[in-house]
């Protein structure tokens, strides 16, 4: 299978790989929203961590990904796109934009869906930790 140059670039030089602490540490931090989506038995797990300030702006984003090259590229790209955005802006990112940017073939569309899900899931976690809009949280969760 031939990968697009952009997928290869993200695979070789992933942007924003990392985390803001161990799973236990970030669970305690109110300024960090954590999204983990996918499952090992399906061959993809994406973890997205967002550091969000009191104005609701995503100051920093870190990802980790167990998955194929397209999954790694999708999550790497997602971190690039959402850094500096407000939470509401970040929620407007659609998987189709990721598909287009990375020229993902049809069999890899699920990678972009997972990336979109990870954004929603991380923001939902942040809102839950900060007691923001239970309905909004429920809405975000309903996407899974």
């Amino acid at each position: 299978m031939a990968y697009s140059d952009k997928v290869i670039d993200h695979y070789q030089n992933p942007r924003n790989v990392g985390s803001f602490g161990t799973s236990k540490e970030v669970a305690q931090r109110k300024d960090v929203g954590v999204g983990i989506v996918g499952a090992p038995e399906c061959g993809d797990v994406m973890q997205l961590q967002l550091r969000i300030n009191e104005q609701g702006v995503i100051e920093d984003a870190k990802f980790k990904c167990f998955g194929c090259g397209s999954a790694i590229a999708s999550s790497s790209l997602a971190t690039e796109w959402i850094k500096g955005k407000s939470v509401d802006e970040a929620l407007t990112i659609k998987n189709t934009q990721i598909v287009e940017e990375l020229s993902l073939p049809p069999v890899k569309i699920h990678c972009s869906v997972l990336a979109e899900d990870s954004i929603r899931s991380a923001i939902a976690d942040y809102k839950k930790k900060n007691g923001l809009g239970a309905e909004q949280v429920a809405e975000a969760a309903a996407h899974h």
Partner: protein
Amino acid sequence: MAVKLPIYLDNAATTRTDPRVVEAMLPYFTEKFGNSASRNHKFGWEAEDGIDLAREQAAALIGASPKEIVWTSGSTESNNLAIKGAARMYAKHPEGTTGVCRGHIITALHEHKAVLDPCKRLQNEGFEVTFLEPPADGVITREMVAAVMRDDTILVSLMWGNNEIGTINEVPEIGALCHERGVIFHTDATQWVGKMPTDVERDHIDLMSWSGHKMYAPKGVGALYVRRRNPRVRLEAIQDGGGHERGMRSGTLNVTGIVGFGKACELAMHEMDSERERLLTLRRKFERELSERLEVVQVNGHAERRLPHIANISFGFVEGESLLMGIKEIACSSGSACTSASLEPSYVLKSLGVGDELAHSSLRLSLGRWSTEEEVDYAIQAIVKAVNHLRTMSPLWDLHKEGIDVSKIEWQTH
């Protein structure tokens, strides 16, 4: 010494044609180009001589008589002819009889699709098939077969060496059991013949498939051994026509391919013993060094009972397709779902009870006649580097390092 890239470590998928094989074939394209069935001129006789020699070479490699070799297009066809041909010939009731079992067949879940799918088709025709579940080490034993054998069992089809994990079934023992019980025994020996000593008499084999392109002959040519004495095995043909191959497989013979197949058998016969030792040493080095240099590495299949050329290794918390991407100068294959159209990880590893996650994390590295120690060393370096790179990105690796059992987490699956 600098290694030439890319490195080919996918010899279980196909092999390079040996130049000596190509050389033997060449005259049959342009000079001795006759149809071996043309009985009344030189061109036909020359082609027939080529076929006869190849039949002797193939038979010699497996301890058979030349009359027991049926030429086919490869192992897929040989398996189809053996399994469907024997089942339909030895069926207990005519086709179309509903509600009664036409005969019982035994095979296993980790067989090649070219065995499983013919068996499934026979199920639709009224045969009952037992698909044995392999144990964790992947080896099917005589006892396992004996435990499911019935009075109406007509056919047992079990491969000799597995193409994904290289495990070796107890073929001679199972063959002996079949002969004691009057059951026809077929083995798909595609990955075995030419690498391991084979004697259809000693090993109690009735039907055996193998393929040119797995042993340094070209693609599109294969053979089926069909026993002629004690017992004489009969097959219902699948492809009808001019009655070639004693009516079992009609169609003008692929003379060039068959000549190449014969030559490859002859070469294998002479070089097998030294080659086997060499490949085994290389495979062991691969497995040992990767296990030493990396954590959470699992060599799949039985520790000892494995073919010399196939290593199947899982690297925990690293997904197989991304690993292949990281070692793109090494041609090999992965049991990951992503490398197939199905999105399912390898059914062979799954049948052994290897968890889906480790199945997604597996590589199959298969060595061949031109594999060198330098190539193996290079591949080891490249794999270690790629696994380490991917683990720095893997959320599962972090969880593992934090002491969390990843298999116990409840994942939100889609």
